[in-house]
């Protein structure tokens, strides 16, 4: 539970960073868009039954690493994007023990009946 919680904190920072550090342009757009959704999916993935949604944050982390190159910005904004991106990706691989069982979970809805 702490890993997605930490990821959502990264999302909050990402959202606030452009206004706190005072930068604009593509870096601002990218960070605030990604930040809000990273915070959201971090919070949702804190619930064990929706833990799988943390993989959305893996994708967002990959975007953060690519963004400085694709959107062509450098300096400390690029550095921040890389650091947060790598941290978010790493956190999705943290295995926290799942305590509860959910009757096969969401995938059970797609499976055929067992005989």
């Amino acid at each position, binding site marked *: 539970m702490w890993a997605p919680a930490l990821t959502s904190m990264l999302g909050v920072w990402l*959202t606030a960073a*452009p*206004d706190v550090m005072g930068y604009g342009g593509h870096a*601002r*757009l990218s960070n*605030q*868009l990604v930040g*809000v*959704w990273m*915070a*959201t999916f971090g*919070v*949702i*993935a*804190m*619930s064990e*039954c*929706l833990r799988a949604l943390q993989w959305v944050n893996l994708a967002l982390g990959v975007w953060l690493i690519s963004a400085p190159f694709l959107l062509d910005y450098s300096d400390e904004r690029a550095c921040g994007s890389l650091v947060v991106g790598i941290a978010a990706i790493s956190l999705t691989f943290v295995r926290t023990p799942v*305590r*509860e*069982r*959910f*009757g*096969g*979970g*969401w995938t*059970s*809805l797609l499976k055929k*009946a067992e005989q």
Partner: protein
Amino acid sequence: MTSTVGTRPPGWTYNPSSWSERLWLIGMAVIGFLISGYLGLYQWGIIDSVWEPFFGRGSETVLHSPLSRVLPVPDAVLGSLAYAIDAVAGAVGGTRRWKTMPWMVILFGIAVGPLGLVSVLLVTAQPLLLHAWCTLCLLSAVISIVMIGPAMDEVLASLQVLKRAKEHDRPLWTVFWKGESQAAWSR
């Protein structure tokens, strides 16, 4: 009180419809209702000013933005309506409602899920379109998002009931509205 064992969905370690799972969700919905109700009254002009401790005139900018007036009713009023549905749909039914009232559980999930999604979209719009932040709007969004995960487990249990009904060729529509009778489980 009856034992919780009989109220658990098959293959579950806990009962998602128990009051300990639901009461705080209802509480969150009530707080969300009060916050967005307050913001809605401001948008309607019934209250003259809005509480904003951090972002200066941010709340005024956000709450009087063209985006908040896309629909005939201000967005916070719709938000408070959605929270009211959350609270009621969260409260109706007993601790077996995941199987006795699938429709209520699914209505609850539909109210909580998209409401949360819309909140996130509105939060995104604050800095990107309006370059302003609104403290109470953010707090309301946090409440909506926090509710999503804990509400969805109950929805999953009800969807599993419908899936089993379909597999056993029981009338899906009847199970959706009236639930699965206790006897139907013993095979």
